[in-house]
């Protein structure tokens, strides 16, 4: 970062933009926005478990997603790229921020910053491990006790009947809620959008969206554990 230069060529210009702390924040914000959009869609997909014939609904949803494997892979690779860029850029900013204050305060008292905003570097890494586990658990199925190809409903029910797995999902989704509470308003500020009329609305939107996504997803393992979902699976 200390090597940021005044650009002389087009290439240097783009590099200088990425080398700058602000350019990096744009990358975090734009990739964060993509990941946020994905979590919204994913949660809506998940909530189909509350439909009357959930098993059928989830199987046809899984088939719908696989209408074209090419398109699915384009989306997967896009999301993976966003995920990797988000984390790599954050790691670089984290190092920069560490070196910007090598000696910590003996006493430091936060004033207005929210708990969620101060723990982005805790909720984020937990989400990273969650995503790895989640793919192994319900997409590949290799860490699942009773994986059935193309039957999300049964995989969910069997998977969440294990209290440890369900517990990890619940913790991870709380972390997602915290991460998005700050992240979703923060991305607007990072790309330079702040207006006294809209910013308070954006903050309420962020908190609401985060709560809905987090609680919507948490309700599923909770309902499985309580036996509300999956009575028909023996």
């Amino acid at each position, binding site marked *: *970062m*200390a090597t*940021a*230069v*005044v*650009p*002389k*060529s087009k290439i240097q*210009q*783009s590099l*200088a*933009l990425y*080398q*700058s*702390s*602000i*350019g*990096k*924040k*744009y990358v975090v914000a734009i990739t964060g926005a993509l990941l946020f959009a994905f979590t919204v869609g994913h949660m809506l997909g998940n909530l189909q478990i509350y439909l009357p014939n959930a098993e059928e609904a989830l199987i046809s949803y899984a088939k719908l997603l696989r209408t074209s494997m090419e398109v699915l892979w384009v989306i997967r690779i896009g999301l993976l790229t966003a995920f990797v860029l988000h984390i790599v850029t954050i790691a670089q*900013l984290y190092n*920069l*921020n560490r*070196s*910007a*204050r*090598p*000696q*910590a*305060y*003996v*006493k*430091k*008292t*936060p*004033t*207005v*910053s929210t708990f969620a*905003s*101060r723990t*982005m570097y805790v909720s984020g890494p937990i989400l990273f491990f969650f995503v790895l586990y989640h793919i192994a658990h319900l997409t590949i199925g290799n860490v699942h006790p009773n994986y059935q190809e193309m039957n999300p409903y049964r995989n969910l029910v069997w998977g969440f009947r294990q209290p440890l797995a369900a517990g990890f999902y619940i913790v991870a989704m709380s972390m997602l809620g915290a991460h998005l509470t*700050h992240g979703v*308003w*923060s991305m607007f*500020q*990072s*790309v*330079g*959008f*702040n*207006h*006294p009329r809209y*910013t308070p609305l954006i903050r309420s939107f962020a908190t609401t969206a985060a709560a809905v996504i987090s609680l919507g997803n948490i309700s599923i393992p909770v309902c499985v554990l309580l036996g509300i979902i999956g009575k028909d699976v023996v």
Partner: protein
Amino acid sequence: MKLTLNVWRQTGPTAPGKMVRYEMPDVNPDMSFLEMLDVLNEGLIQKGDSPIVFEHDCREGICGSCGFMIDGKAHGGFPKTTVCQLHMRHYKDGDELFLEPWRATAFPIVKDLMVNRSAFDRIIQAGGFISVPTGSAVDGNAIAIPKSNSDRAMDAAQCIGCGACVASCPNASASLFTGAKIAHLNLLPQGQPEKLDRALHMVTTMNEEMFGSCTNLRECEATCPKGISIENIAIMNRHFVEASFAHRPTASEAGAG
């Protein structure tokens, strides 16, 4: 009233520092915080100890010289108050306070509670100015400025460069300072000719000075003695990215100058 102070003592930039405890048996609640330290220093000098070094000048909240952390909050954390404007009546008998210098790589400690804020000067030198032709002053009313722009520019211009934003930021970011200085000029017609160069050069210098990166925690805005809004950071971010895309090398930058 009785106070216990834990003050960061450090003899020089590279010397190791430590917290030293001082008992103040009789603090007058009408004293300002700096006057309280003056009294402590009188006592230290009489005992032959070296006085606590802290920066100050105007003692009325306009010069930006003073500032240190009180109990982990920049300037003590009172709304729109510099430490020189802070009075002891805000504290209670028996309180124990921790006094520390601003901590940032970009702000090396000079001694005790005093840091070197020249990094801010270098950010200003990079673009915190406008170029005007010499000659007689233009009629003040000749340039039309929308009221809301002049208001916002004046709000940003209130920055006194004390460094509390950097100090209170968990990332030691100078975004509020740099944002205020950029927005202050970029919102006004007089700032337009150098708008993009200003954003590009001041942000680049800010990065070179090893300040951290903003994570939108808003600690700076809350502790800024002038109440400067993080809206200025958003303006900086926009103008910097615009400048990065639009920039054309000038003759001198391209090496032909």
